[in-house]
């Protein structure tokens, strides 16, 4: 298993290199470079072209592209992700401040949608054709069709303004920092973020469960005299799990992407909100770094999915 993980990580590296190259290309192509950003427009008038050239040389900005790329790559590996144009704060520091919030939100949404989606999907399958099934089917279709941000707005209207149950945004109220005290801030964004994932998981779990229950080994399980709950759960559902796990893996990028919008609506202080403001202000280093790390996240997630799939299905060979 460890060898498998190591091999998978090794496979990642060429992809990451290509992406880092493209990222650096993007950074480089954007008008302006570090020197321009370090000098405010007013000061620009007082600086001579020779001084600018000297500054560039000092920073190594006159070296050929490939060399600059490699230097950048080296500092990347060492943990230096460049600086935000807007604030001058190192990007790594920005990440440190915002990553935990985004991870918390994404993980909550993932957990919610996996568990809820699976349960509802299985129940739909077992009660196929019943009223429950039909209602859930419709709910599932709605969940896929409603834009996440609209659902967010509607939820805010209902739960924040009309019912007053939950706070309007932000990650916590000052003074209530413990996790359980923050839950009321987490619920709404997590539900909204998890909406379309839940709907997708539910539909897929239903289909997978129906397929699984039709297979011969379910008949064999019944023929052994096992109680229905065991047949449904340990045989039907257990085998239906694997395709659902694969689906969830495929949808993870959408979850990460969705966080961008949801964070904005709920003013959740995560990477998404930081990314959006960086895009608006053309803060290239931040934009590119977020892009790079989102890819990294997706690739790591796909490895995790592979491992989970192998664990769930012994027929999958860990080559």
């Amino acid at each position, binding site marked *: 298993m460890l060898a498998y993980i190591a091999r998978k990580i090794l496979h990642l590296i060429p992809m990451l290199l290509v992406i880092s190259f493209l990222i650096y290309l993007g950074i480089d192509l954007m008008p302006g470079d570090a020197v321009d950003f370090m000098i405010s427009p007013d000061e620009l008038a007082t600086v001579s072209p020779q001084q600018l050239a000297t500054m560039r040389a000092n920073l190594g900005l006159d070296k050929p592209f490939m060399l600059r790329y490699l230097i950048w790559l080296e500092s990347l590996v060492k943990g230096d992700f460049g600086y935000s144009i807007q604030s001058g704060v190192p990007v790594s520091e920005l990440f440190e401040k915002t990553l935990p919030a985004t991870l918390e939100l994404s993980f909550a949404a993932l957990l919610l949608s996996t568990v809820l989606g699976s349960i509802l999907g299985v129940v739909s399958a077992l009660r196929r054709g019943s009223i429950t099934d039909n209602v859930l089917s419709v709910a599932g279709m709605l969940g896929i069709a409603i*834009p996440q941000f609209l659902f967010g707005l509607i939820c805010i209207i209902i739960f924040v303004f009309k019912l007053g149950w939950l706070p309007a945004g932000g990650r916590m109220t000052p003074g209530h920092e413990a996790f359980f005290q923050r839950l009321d801030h987490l619920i709404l964004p997590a539900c909204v973020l998890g909406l379309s994932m839940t709907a997708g998981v539910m539909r897929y779990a239903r289909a997978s469960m129906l397929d699984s229950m039709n297979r011969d080994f379910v008949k064999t399980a019944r023929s052994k005299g096992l109680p229905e709950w065991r047949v449904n759960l340990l045989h039907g559902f257990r085998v239906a799990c694997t395709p659902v796990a694969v689906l969830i893996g495929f949808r993870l990028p959408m979850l990460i992407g969705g966080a961008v919008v949801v964070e904005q*609506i709920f003013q959740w202080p995560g990477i998404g909100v930081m990314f959006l403001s960086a895009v608006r202000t053309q803060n290239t280093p931040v934009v590119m770094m*977020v*892009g790079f790390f989102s890819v990294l996240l997706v690739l790591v997630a796909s490895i995790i999915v592979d491992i989970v799939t192998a664990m769930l299905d012994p027929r999958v060979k860990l080559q």
Partner: protein
Amino acid sequence: MKKDKLGRKMDRLLERELAGELGHSNRNRALRKFGANKLAFAGGLVFAVILLLCIFAPLFTQFSSTNVDLRNRLSPPGSVHIMGTDQIGRDIWSRMLYGGRISILIGLGSALGATLIGVSLGTWAGYRGGFLDATIMKLSELLMSFPQIILVLILVSIAGQSLWNIIFIFVLTGWPSMYRMTRSQMLSIREEDFVQALRAFGVSDVLIAFKHILPNAIGPIFVNITLSTATFILQESALSFLGLGVPSNVSTWGNILSPAQNLTILRENWWIWLPVGLALSIFVLAINFIGDGLRDAADPSQMG
């Protein structure tokens, strides 16, 4: 034994079977398929209605979507402005109709563009295999390893915001999944006997791939086009909502509700965001129904 609902249904079926009423198989089957696709039919209807409203917008509203009228800012729905006005006095109903044109254009246009590129590449590279296929595959993997919205936003920050930029970016980020799907179809159909026969007859690769194999994969492709349209419409609306999609002088369903990011507007001026949101959702729902209907119709493994 106690007869439950299922048992009684069976009894009725038995009666009719013994009386020879059943068994007009073809007619029954087609009728049944149509009935089961009531949803698809309804979806088609809703889709057509909304589409027509948007295309023939000038017939349904006297205002233009860009007419600023600061005296009537934020007025609720009334007799003059059916859906009220937004924060700079533009009539929301007209913005919805004209905006619908743009949103649908973006959705459909991007879907068709991505399909054109993805399917062509998938058909050719999937059939030929080799270096070309491997390269394009790697490229598609690269593009697909970005969460789509992040990639789109990166491209927007590089290329700037405009209607055609958005379509272009959507096509660029959307072709990989069509490519993958077509390619996998190609790979399985390629092994079929009739393809070997065509090759033995000396038919050229281009003809085999595009004229013979591709039509067999058409079903899932059409389903994907419809579902992609829905996805792109949703994506555009999310982008424009955030103010990073189509700039707000050209109205789209997304940027009409963009002001609702402000909590006050959200709470006080529901007419700015709720009607558009509903229209958007209903339209996407209709497309999903159509897509599902197409998928069911194209699926030979479904027992009629």
